[in-house]
């Protein structure tokens, strides 16, 4: 099993940390992982993206151009990465702020309205956990308890009191994700 994922959005949306929690969850499940961020000035206020690979085998290239799943959190990223999804692959996106919706017909598309949900839950910081929950519903490659373990590993101890809130957000994400289109 190898799952090749790109997560892309604005800097500050928690793109990199979502990827990190995903990677940690993979580690907790005794799998091979790699987390390859975009780095440098483009991170500061601009777009941010990270490639996460979770695999039962040794990972070859950590930098790839074709993905099984793309998690897209802004318009620029949708424009940039929609074409990089493998035929039959998965696109998960938050429609908040999206003016041009995905157009490909050969991929399965899900929407997760995490921005809206996070503000409804009055915890904007759990936005990325809602998205992650949605992803896990669609691609249950790691078990939820390993994700919680991953969260504990990637969060400094002083933030461990926030774990129940994040767990809640994960569950909520699983509930609200909806299929928009099945791959043809």
């Amino acid at each position, binding site marked *: 099993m190898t799952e090749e994922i790109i997560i892309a959005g604005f800097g500050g949306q928690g793109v990199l940390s979502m990827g990190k929690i995903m990677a940690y969850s993979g580690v907790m499940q005794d799998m091979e*992982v790699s987390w390859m961020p975009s780095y440098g000035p483009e991170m500061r206020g601009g777009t941010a993206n990270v490639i996460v690979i979770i695999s039962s085998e040794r*990972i*070859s290239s950590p930098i*790839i151009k074709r993905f099984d799943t793309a998690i897209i959190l802004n318009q620029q990223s949708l424009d940039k990465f929609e074409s990089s999804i493998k035929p039959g692959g998965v696109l998960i996106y938050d429609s908040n702020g999206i003016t041009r919706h995905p157009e490909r017909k050969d991929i399965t598309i899900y929407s997760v309205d995490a921005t809206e949900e996070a503000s409804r839950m009055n915890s904007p910081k759990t936005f990325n956990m809602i998205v992650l929950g949605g992803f896990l519903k669609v691609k249950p490659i790691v078990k939820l308890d390993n994700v919680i373990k991953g969260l504990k*590993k990637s969060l400094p101890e002083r933030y461990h009191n926030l774990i129940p809130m994040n767990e809640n957000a994960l569950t909520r994400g699983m509930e609200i994700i909806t299929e928009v289109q099945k791959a043809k």
Partner: protein
Amino acid sequence: MEKELRLMKGNEAVAEAAIRAGVDGYFGYPITPQTEIIEYLMEANPSQTTGMVVLQAESEIAAINMVYGGAACGKKVMTSSSSPGISLKQEGITYIAGAELPCLIVNVVRGGPGLGTIQPAQSDYFQSVKGGGHGDYHLIVLAPASVQEMADFVDLGFELAFKYRNPVLMLSDGAIGQMMEKVYLSPQKERSKVFPDWATTGKPATRERNIITSLDLDPNGQELFNRKLVAKYDKIREKEVRYEEFQCEDAEYLLVAYGTSARVCQKSVQLAREQGIRVGLLRPITLFPFPTKRINELADRVKGILSVEMSAGQMVEDVLLAANGKVPVWHFGRMGGIVTTPEEVIENLKSKIIGG
């Protein structure tokens, strides 16, 4: 003791491995994409635990000369930087080579020339293995292809550096430095309390004074020293070649790639074999000494060799020398901070070698 599993960036792994290897001193200067190394060390504050000195120098030049001073005291000392900073260090590096001092230098390569880009590249190959600074010298060059190797090569680097009294360069790149992978970390080693007999530690009455210098104004003396270095490098060529082979057993075509490019090429091998093309990969782990002999042997069995690196074609010169005209050798690489894709490698293999 059991190894500890962590998920870390390559840069963080180097820093943590340095503390655990019992390194005595780190001297550095911030530059992207390797600044996490000094940040991690400052945060970890090992002066309070192992007693390791961590110092932010005023320049790359000062940092490498601090390494000179520390290494001359027989201590395990290191520095790290990225390409433009490594250029600045070249003066110090040739003095260190000339004074035969052991140390570890980490280069997390970015694209050049000049200020270039902060994205990953492999365009410092010539600088690393063919010279860099002035004079006849070689560094031992280790090329990690994973976060695990960035950690492991700290220990290996110091082992080789002290074994041969020679500076060791870890030639990584922005991709391996910035990515996170699983890494198994060795248990904490104690810092050494014994010093080599050549070190300047204060002259007791029981021995002659120790002098660390790279100067000999007498040409005969200097040539003798040069010959001594040549003999040392020959011994290193004989004993320390390291490489990894991936599906070379039945390969009709051979890829040669190190570091990030080797990871990409591993995927290319898989994809090519799915298309029925029998491709193998040889990954040099040491770039000096280069696996010349092994490539020469493989050249007897394959129909062509593609050297893949993120540069305009540097390592390919060593591959050409190794193949010695037996089979066609071509270069393929992206530049400017662009990482080659596995598919591009196969396309180039087809167009340059198979169809060529």
